């Protein structure tokens, strides 16, 4: 187990509420992998969605505040779990590392001297795992392999686009494959794994988002997936909570469990991570139903 693997952690709003299972499972997994995850002592909203307005720098200030705090607390690397936080912080950080006059303007506005350096490296947990942890390490910790479970990793947009911040090939992402394989799962590649779920349109255009959810879920199903693994609380919500709405137009849609990839890791490693506020309990239940042991499969037995 690697010594002294320490990383700053920026949780973001949803990880402390609706996505607490994501956080607790990730923290549990990090602990057994020997990663010291140190939450920033103060943090605020990441500032999502990254503003695309080239002129108005205001919407970036929330992100900058977090980056400054990370630097002040002595973190050279910070990690997020939420894809949106990753995307927003990383794009903001790029303002400071690329040749861009935004850097001076922001530092001036915040009366910062010498100003934020741009030197904090922003990781998504997946990227962190790929760079610092070998799949064999994950495999060695698995006590209940997900044998026979077909998991479709879903990446969505924010980890893959725009290309300056992509953690993987935007057209053929496979960063989750080695992890899920190490857990013993069958990894399902499906063409919608990099398609947008509709993101925040869920607040106003739920029908449109439900159409997206239907196509994504049905594509994964037709490729034989038992469940979809996600890395973003918003994707999780859109793909799971909108299944009811999807069924109003596509009554035949079979229930598809949506789980965070860290939940699968924690389960396979036999870690107890469940929080009191279980998110979308019906979904977890459905996922567990999928994992119900068959008489002749000891791997499944252990997953109970």
């Amino acid at each position, binding site marked *: 187990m690697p010594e002294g693997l320490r990383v700053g952690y920026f949780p973001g709003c949803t990880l402390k509420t609706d996505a607490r299972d994501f956080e607790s499972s990730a923290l549990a997994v990090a602990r057994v992998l020997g990663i010291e995850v140190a939450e920033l002592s103060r943090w605020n909203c990441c500032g999502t969605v990254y503003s695309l307005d080239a002129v108005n720098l205001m919407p970036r200030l929330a992100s900058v505040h977090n980056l400054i705090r990370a630097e002040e607390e002595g973190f050279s690397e910070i990690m997020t779990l939420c894809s949106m936080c990753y995307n927003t912080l990383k794009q903001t950080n790029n303002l400071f590392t690329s040749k861009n006059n935004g850097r001076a303007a922001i530092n001036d506005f915040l009366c910062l001297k010498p100003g934020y350096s741009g030197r904090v490296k922003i990781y998504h947990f997946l990227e962190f795992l790929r760079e610092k942890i070998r799949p064999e390490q994950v495999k060695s910790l698995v006590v209940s392999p997900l044998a026979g479970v077909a998991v479709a990793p879903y990446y969505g947009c924010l980890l893959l686009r725009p290309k300056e911040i992509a953690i993987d*090939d*935007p*057209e*053929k992402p496979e960063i989750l494959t080695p992890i899920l394989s190490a857990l013993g799962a069958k990894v399902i590649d499906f*063409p919608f794994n990099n398609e947008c779920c509709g993101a925040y349109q869920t607040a106003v255009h739920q029908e449109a988002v439900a159409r997206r959810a239907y196509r994504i879920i049905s*594509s994964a199903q*037709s490729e034989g997936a038992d469940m979809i693994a996600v890395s973003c609380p918003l994707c999780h919500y859109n793909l799971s909570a909108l299944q009811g709405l999807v069924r109003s137009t596509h009554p035949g849609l079979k229930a598809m469990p949506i789980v965070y990839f860290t939940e699968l890791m924690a389960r396979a490693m036999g870690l107890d991570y469940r929080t009191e506020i279980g998110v979308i309990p019906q979904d977890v239940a459905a996922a567990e139903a999928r994992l119900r042991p068959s008489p002749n499969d000891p791997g499944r037995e252990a997953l109970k």
Partner: protein
Amino acid sequence: MTRLGVFICHCGKNIARTVNIEALREKAATLPHVVLAKDYLYLCSKPGQTMIADDIREHRLDKVLIAACSPRLHGKTFAQTAQRAGLNPYLLDMANIREHCSWVHIDGAEGTEKAFSIIKGGLGRLLYAEPLEPFQSPVTKRVLVIGGGVAGIQATLDIANSGYEVYLVEKSPSLGGHMAQLGETFPTLDCSSCILTPKMVEVSQNEHVHLLSYSEVTRIEGNIGQFQVTVRLRPRYVDETLCTGCGDCVPTCPVVVSNEFDQGLGARKAVYLPFPQAVPAVYTIDWDACLNTDKLIICENCYKDCEAKAINFLMEPQEKMVEVGAVVLATGYELMPVARIGEYGGDEYEDVIDGLQFERMLSASGPTGGVVRRPSDGRIPQNVVFVQCAGSRDPEHGIPYCSKVCCMYTAKHALLYKHAVPDGQVYVFYIDIRAAGKGHEEFVQKVMSEERILYLRGKVSKIFKSGAKLVVWGADTLSGRQVEIEADLVVLAMAVIPSSGSQKLARTLHIASDLSGFFSEAHPKLRPLESNTDGIFLAGAAQFAKDITDTVSQATGAAGKALSLLANDFIKLEPTISEVEEGICRGCGLCVSICPFGAVKMLPSTRTGAMVAGINPILCKGCGLCTAGCLSGAVTLKGSSFKQIFAQLEEMV
């Protein structure tokens, strides 16, 4: 006492706009040795040249400086003017006050000052210039053609039929190139192999042609008129002189692999003829596929079955030296691999194929016998989507240029598919239709209207598999709608890129290629058939993507260029090459290792017998590396001596 003349060109407004010509002329007239300073609107014009020639005679000028454009543009023009006036052309020099000065300056005062210092430098250099005489070099009356596609074949035949010897070097086992793979050609629907194979046979039967197939050029030395070429003949493990082409070796060969000629859609044995009409009609053993290795002969089935005893497992690569006077480069193109486009499946989907693969299916001699089938299940596809500009016109991910032939061959593909499967549906995604050749627009229009083919104006964003079908996401920008098509087969008109060995060849031949990897022509308008190395000519898609018509035209043109060179017994070569002063050379040999052209050799001195450097004037290109490298200062580059260069620098600063 030297009598210098300075002539300053206005170049219309090109120079005069930022350089005060009048002031410049007045200042130049005061410089030492200058007996005449004149200006003129266009010195390169006939009256301008006449004026210079008259002045040289009238004022008995010894040396002349032309302050005008780059010598790359008009160096030759004014050298001829000097010659006409009886002045050694190397005593006339040019000071570039256009590209180096007026074009890059906005401020008039600055421009004029800089122009003056350029003229001063030029005069300083000219002061030490010495008359030089071009030397004659004999022309070897043979031509090397590299590449055995239709361009190389055409150039070879044109030259050979004029009575000159041609060495034709082809990398693959057979002549024919991509044209041999095609089914029918646009816009006339001529059968491609029917019109090509007679030419291939003609090449093999022409007594002036030496066909070196399965071979590569590995080294080239020399200069225009005298190139020494090294060709590496790969062992085909079948003796070309003995093989009768009977094919008895094939049935018992136990190894089956995919055939490159069928673009990976068809099979062949390890011992093979790429296609039945191959020239030369001799078999080749693919040593990578054969069970035998250099150390171990495991299988002798073909050897045993060959009655002509042509099989020789011990064959080794051979090197052949060839001396030629000119080279025609016709190395052709290939298609960008589908793997480069991730959103189109990146070569993961069997039923997403490229244009050449579709050609092989359409070809009667292809792996499907001319029937269009899905590679995945062999069924005849009912919905076929063609995607144009796959990789082309995409500076972000692919290549920035238009591949030029895709609009036409896609229309042809659509037509031929409809002829084969009348009830099938065809959809063509395009951005613009570029059908600018003779009969091309009419062809596309005819295909659209008579075959009732739906052309959709939009670029496809994503292709993915859904069950046995392929889903194509496109748009029809004309109606402003997204389009989704469930297709059985998708044909990508992949970008045309230079053939894979062309960069290596460019380095071997010391010629330039452009950003996309195509060989650079000497001038885009006026010398499109010549490389920037004299005596090396370009033909076909090696220079840029082009169709068969243009390729054949260019090949004939390149052959004409080569022939006009061969019409001379001798050519004049520039005397601006290096020269060793034997008395100073201490024989260290550093220059031998520096010279990139192998022009320097250590030879015994004619006077003392000690080993000193000697320059081969044919090989020397006058680059000056040896002069800069020589520790004793024994090497001089004629026309750019140290005296001249230092004088120029001193005058300028």
